[in-house]
């Protein structure tokens, strides 16, 4: 595919840091994040943002890790806003005082997306392995008081799907503009914890019915996005709207990626924006061109009527489940590997629902059949001399 046929990025996700006070069991950061290099400094981020904006990017997310841990966040927001970006802060809420919310508003921040893990303190605190439920409730009020549009994001899994009605009620009470019910996507820490997080198809259908009923009842005041649980829906998602099509992730160390998790794919050398321009990385790098267009697709995808809608689904999912990043997304009924997805769902059906109560234990690295995201666990799971594979391909 020639550069002329490739459109510029629309979305830039600036992962400012992998540092995070939370230890979420479904974190989308790489398992081996603790081994990654130094964070970009303020000046380099400004240059990178300027280059991305010059390409035509419009939406900018400040993410992480927890972006509020960067004390230059206000300076980066002001720079980005000056460039004309629409600026989104994607945060756990930890560190967002009323004073900082106002300072960010003055700097030009447009919108805040706040994560919640559940409608109950017990489960929120267990899943994050922190005492953060009350703090998040206070932060939601701070965000609204400061006049921001607010999106609440809640990652959904076996533990909190039965609470979906109460999560919707909580978001309404907090006056959220949008509620994103993000069914777990199995990459990074979520992939590692998939056996415990995976709901049954019935649990998903029950929750979805509650969402649909609420949509009809509420007449659209608070919009709810129900992210498709693609294993159960058996329909490949148009991942990132296509590889290198609209989405540019910049990792804390400056590596440019087409999505949060592509870095673990073998055989791809992703450019680092410390020494490569955003333009060159986006248009010219072999890694960004690897899965553009249709030439790389399997016969199954290349001849499928859905290929322009779903772009053959997700490369990371294909790799994790089949061992081949160019394979048909295994959630697709046409995939030769769909049986592996069905086996995971069947396994969830055979497991008993998690035994209550799940209690937050300070400093715990594991609990309830889950490992918590954290530096020590990251180093242990990605030890290059250990024999275990951090992301084993399902046999």
């Amino acid at each position, binding site marked *: 595919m020639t550069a002329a046929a490739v459109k*510029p990025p629309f979305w830039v996700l600036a992962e400012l840091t992998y540092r995070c006070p939370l230890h979420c069991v479904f974190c989308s950061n790489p398992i081996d994040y603790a081994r990654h290099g130094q964070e970009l400094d303020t000046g380099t981020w400004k240059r990178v943002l300027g280059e991305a904006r010059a390409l035509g990017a*419009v*939406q900018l*997310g400040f993410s992480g890790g927890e972006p509020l841990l960067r004390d230059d966040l206000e300076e980066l927001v002001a720079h980005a806003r000056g460039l004309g970006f629409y600026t*989104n802060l994607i945060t756990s809420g930890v560190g967002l005082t009323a004073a900082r919310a106002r300072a960010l508003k003055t700097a030009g921040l447009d919108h805040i997306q706040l994560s919640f893990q559940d409608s109950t303190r017990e489960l929120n605190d267990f899943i994050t392995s922190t005492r953060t439920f009350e703090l998040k409730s206070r932060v939601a009020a701070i965000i609204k008081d400061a006049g921001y*549009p607010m999106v609440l994001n809640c990652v959904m899994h076996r533990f909190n799907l039965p609470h979906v009605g109460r999560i919707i009620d909580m978001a309404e009470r907090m006056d959220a503009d949008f509620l994103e019910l993000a069914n777990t996507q199995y990459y990074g820490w979520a992939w590692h914890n998939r056996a415990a997080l995976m709901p049954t198809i019935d649990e998903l259908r029950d929750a979805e019915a509650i969402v649909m009923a609420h949509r009809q009842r509420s007449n659209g005041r608070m919009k709810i996005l129900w992210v498709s649980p693609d294993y159960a829906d058996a329909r490949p998602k148009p991942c990132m709207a296509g590889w290198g099509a609209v989405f540019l992730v910049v990792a804390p160390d400056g590596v440019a990626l087409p999505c949060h998790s592509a870095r673990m794919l073998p055989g791809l050398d992703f450019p680092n924006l410390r020494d490569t321009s955003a333009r060159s990385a986006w248009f010219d790098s072999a890694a960004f061109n690897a899965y553009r267009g249709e030439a790389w697709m399997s016969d199954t995808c290349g001849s499928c009527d859905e290929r322009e809608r779903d772009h053959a689904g997700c490369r990371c999912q294909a790799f994790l489940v089949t061992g081949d990043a160019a394979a048909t997304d295994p959630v697709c009924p046409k995939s030769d590997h769909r049986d592996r997805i069905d086996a995971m769902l069947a396994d969830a059906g055979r497991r008993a629902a998690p035994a209550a109560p799940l209690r937050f234990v300070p400093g715990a690295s594991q609990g309830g059949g889950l490992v918590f995201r954290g530096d020590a666990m990251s180093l242990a799971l990605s030890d290059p001399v250990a024999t275990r594979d951090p992301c084993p391909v399902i046999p």
Partner: protein
Amino acid sequence: MIDSASRPAVAPMYRLQFEQAQDAWVLLYPEGMVRLNMPAAEILRRCDGRRSVDEIVGELELAFARSALRDDVHAFLAQASDRGWVMQ
């Protein structure tokens, strides 16, 4: 129904700006963008909370040397209001 005397403004959730790369005015909102056609952009640019609907109609008729734009402006504003783009 749009009140001719009301003074519509772009809702706080949205930001209106010209995008060089799109060669168009756009409405930006959390994680998204609407690309506006020329008439929509010309109306929304004037929704500043100070001009009344009647004044917007008058300005547009003058700027584009057209008459009887009232129905078009009202129809667009009703739609924009339904979508939450403007507040009256």
